[in-house]
């Protein structure tokens, strides 16, 4: 049974979510139930074999089965109170087949031999019915069966085992400290996801995976009723492929920046960030409104990640390039002819962008994708040139490759898997360089931290990004905070204006926990790593208005 509710996120900052509401997929259960074990691997394999045999007997030439249990725990608080605690569980079986050269998909929550056999037969029926309209028969890249495999996110603390009270205590502490430091309002949330998924295919793969993700976040609001003004500052945490240990706030994972700014690598100090957020939101109240014009931008990884996501991640999805998303998300400027030319300068020579599903602690990291392909790393942009796309088994032939990239994903057992973005990251610079070193060399610039408003066209040329905190740079020095800042550019122009990168010591990942794509829409989670980077002569507009 499918149950997908969307929780409207009132009171959260503009930049906090990719979607305006947060999807809750599954049925409410108690927190204790989330820890109860589900059916064991032997039983899953037995059910999978029933599906594989049933589909084959009905005429499928290929079948894959995903037997999944998806758990979510979301906590929502504001100021001194808990607004909502969501514990949700969803389990069932999704069966995808090829019959008559056409895909068919069916899913059921009836996890019994009969239910699964019936579901497999329905998938074949749908494939055969749709084959009447099929113009391009499906051809899958070969994938040898991998046999019985397991993979687990290497977490240290299972967030679902941490008592709810401990989490509430932390959020109340976050809210309290923000209020003490000048916040008028605070909303704070924690999102935990655990995907327990078993994949089997007629290629001979039987893969059991246990995937964990975490995202603590908040929005601090400062108001001045006399002036009729308010300002917000969102958390600069990143969603991670980690357990509750992400919230340990280890000093060793902090990166000290200019003006008391703190960057967080693989460990987040939520209370410290909330205090800084309240102070910065207050400072924003009296910050200078930016003069529009050309500036050299110094972009923090917690900001740049979203620009990478929108201007490199999405346009290099092969399904978009081919037109499969034309009616919704759009197509792409990164067309096949540009890739075929082998000299399309996507960015400056400094720009090296890699795709991967392997990097530890990231949202994309799994052992195998949702069509049983072992995960790997590959280049998307090398020395500034577009060299590859993101492609799955039924697409790689189009770019002359024989192996899938392993970036197929479904957000639930009852959603059909399709091409989703792997981690897409900008490699750090090879020369030794800190943020302070970078700022020293900027005459007229703006240093931007955190994700703000973001918008990009349907072919990913023209974009506009805001941020959380902006500092003016004059003659190599930070001179104060700015407000009303957004930059507009064109993807190719922007990446070609990249003139400096900080080194690996400044490298951090940014993440998107609820990235939407497809009709009906599915979410996915993806990380984007980078070090602080400099982009020269970018157009900055002033977003201040009077109503």
């Amino acid at each position, binding site marked *: 049974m499918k149950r997908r509710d969307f929780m*409207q996120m009132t009171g959260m900052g503009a930049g906090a979510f990719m979607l305006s509401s947060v999807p809750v997929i599954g049925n409410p259960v*108690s927190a204790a139930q989330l820890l109860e074990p589900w059916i064991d691997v032997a039983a899953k394999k037995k059910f999978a074999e029933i599906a594989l045999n049933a589909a084959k007997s009905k005429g499928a030439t290929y079948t894959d089965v995903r037997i999944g249990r998806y758990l979510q725990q979301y906590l929502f608080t504001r100021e001194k109170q808990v607004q909502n605690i969501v514990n949700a569980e969803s389990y069932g079986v999704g069966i995808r087949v090829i019959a008559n050269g056409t895909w068919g998909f*069916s899913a059921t929550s009836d996890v019994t031999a009969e239910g699964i056999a019936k579901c497999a037969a329905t998938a074949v029926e749908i494939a055969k019915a749709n084959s009447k309209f099929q113009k391009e028969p499906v051809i899958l890249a070969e994938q040898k069966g991998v046999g019985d495999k397991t993979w687990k996110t290497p977490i240290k603390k299972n967030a679902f085992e941490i008592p709810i009270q401990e989490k509430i205590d932390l959020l109340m502490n976050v809210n309290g400290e923000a209020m003490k430091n000048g916040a008028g309002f605070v909303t704070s949330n924690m999102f935990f996801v655990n995907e327990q998924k078993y994949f089997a295919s007629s290629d001979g793969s039987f893969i059991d995976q246990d995937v964990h993700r975490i995202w603590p976040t908040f929005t601090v609001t400062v108001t001045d009723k006399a002036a009729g*003004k308010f300002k917000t500052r969102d958390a600069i945490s990143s969603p991670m492929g980690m357990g509750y240990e992400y919230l340990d706030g280890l000093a060793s994972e902090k990166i000290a920046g200019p003006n008391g700014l703190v960057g967080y690598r693989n460990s987040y100090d939520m209370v410290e960030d909330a205090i800084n957020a309240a102070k910065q939101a207050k400072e924003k109240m009296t910050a200078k409104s930016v003069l529009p014009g050309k500036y050299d931008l110094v972009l923090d990884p917690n900001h740049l990640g979203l620009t990478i996501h929108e201007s490199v991640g999405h346009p290099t999805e092969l399904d978009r390039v081919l*037109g499969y998303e034309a009616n919704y998300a759009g197509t792409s400027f990164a067309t096949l002819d540009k890739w075929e030319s082998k000299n399309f300068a996507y960015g400056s020579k400094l720009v090296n962008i890699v795709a991967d599903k392997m990097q530890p602690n990231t949202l994309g990291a799994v052992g195998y994708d949702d069509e049983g392909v072992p995960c790997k790393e590959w280049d998307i942009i090398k020395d500034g040139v577009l060299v590859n796309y993101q492609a799955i088994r039924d697409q790689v032939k189009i770019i002359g490759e024989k192996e899938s990239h392993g970036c197929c994903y479904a957000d639930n057992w009852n959603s059909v898997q399709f091409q989703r973005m792997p981690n897409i990251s900008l490699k750090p610079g090879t020369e030794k360089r800190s943020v302070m070193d970078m700022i020293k060399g900027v005459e007229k610039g703006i240093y931007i931290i955190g994700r703000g408003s973001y918008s990009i066209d349907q072919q990913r040329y023209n974009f506009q990004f805001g941020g959380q905190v902006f500092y003016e740079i004059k003659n190599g020095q930070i001179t104060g905070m700015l407000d009303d800042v957004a930059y507009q550019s064109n993807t190719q122009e922007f990446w070609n204006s990249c003139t400096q990168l900080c080194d690996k010591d400044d490298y951090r990942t940014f993440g998107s926990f609820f990235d939407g794509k497809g009709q009906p829409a599915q979410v996915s989670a993806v990380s984007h790593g980078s070090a602080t980077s400099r982009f020269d002569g970018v157009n900055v507009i002033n*977003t201040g208005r009077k*109503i």
Partner: protein
Amino acid sequence: MAILSKEEAKKIIDKVLAFSKADEMSVGLSGNRTGNIRYARNSVSTSGETTDLSLSVTSVFGKKSGTSTINEFDDASLEKTVRRAEEIAKLAPDNPEYVPMLGAQQYLETNSFADSTAAINPDYRAKAAFDSIDPCVKKNLTAAGYLEDSAGFSALGNSRGLFGYNKSTSIDFSITVRTADGKGSGYAARDFNDASKLSTASATEVAMQKAMASATAKALEPGKYTVILEPTAGVDLLDNMMRSMDARNADEGRSFLGKKGGGTRLGEKLFDERVNIYSDPQNLEIPGSPFSGDGRPQEKVMWVENGVVKNMSYSRFWAQKQGVKAIAPPSGFIFQGGNESLADLIKGTEKGILVTRLWYIRAVDPQTLLYTGLTRDGTFYIENGQIKYPVKNFRFNESPVIMLNNVEAIGKPVRAGGNLVPPLKIRDFTFTSLSDAV
């Protein structure tokens, strides 16, 4: 059967209520059958159908509440669900903003169910897709579209005597047509309760015309222009504004409805005096649910009258605290207009830009309700009452509040995204840069 009758639903809800040992209990019961078909590159890519029937129980002890859900309906399962909700409630933290449940309510009759939509089957969807793809293939154009239909019911009841039941249907269709060389793109979207009002062929015809007509776009300098926003273009900006009319945020001074010196702009003239926006669950074009999710009756509400902010929406807690009526947020809005068609508005325009669709709209500043986004799938230059030529897409930075102070003309409303929205002629609409996207 996913769609239960009022009597069947009431029988189940009453049975569940009888199991309650909590201070208060509410029961939600809903079911629907949803189907879809998606196509791209003139070929069907996915299609499916899901049926769903589920029961949700919320039990309350004092200010603690717990919810449990189930999709099995035998007595033992129902009782188990009630016990589970009670267990969860006992473990929950107190909610200081808890408001006791509503008693029996009077609901308006709405007509949100159409047999034509409930009868849709896979053959209907396949034909709907074919009617859209086939004309494109014949003209060497590429179609990508999505159709989703749903038929269902929703019932709720509680231990204080409230009971509500509503059946509804919906069908949503969108189509993007692109020219073979990728230089032209057109779009159309339709949504109805009654599927017999939908012709995928005629909506596709509009998108085809726009695709062909937009293929040789010229670049105009960004700046302030008079624009005509088709309902498909205006609806999202207006919807964003309507979703921002929450009273609590305004009272707390963090909304565009907050005021210098404290207080809100309720009762103030914030828009052009021709702007009138209301909601009405009984409207025949956009019939909605007679009740909101928490059981409050949906009634006709004037949100903006002659440019003056007349009402804001409230949670029950905030309304109680402020001592006012708890007006629920609407499910759809009606922007009143005149009788002029889109063609009439174009005819009356000396110089301007016709916008088919706005895309990737994101909030830039919640203080002023400033949004950014882009035009898409058919943007045209108008001169002396005629469409002269297609223009390249623009990025805009505009606030619906500013926009609704710059109204030149309001056309005849049509249904868009579950609302009634007129084509709007707006002066000084702010385009800040050009986009190469088609």
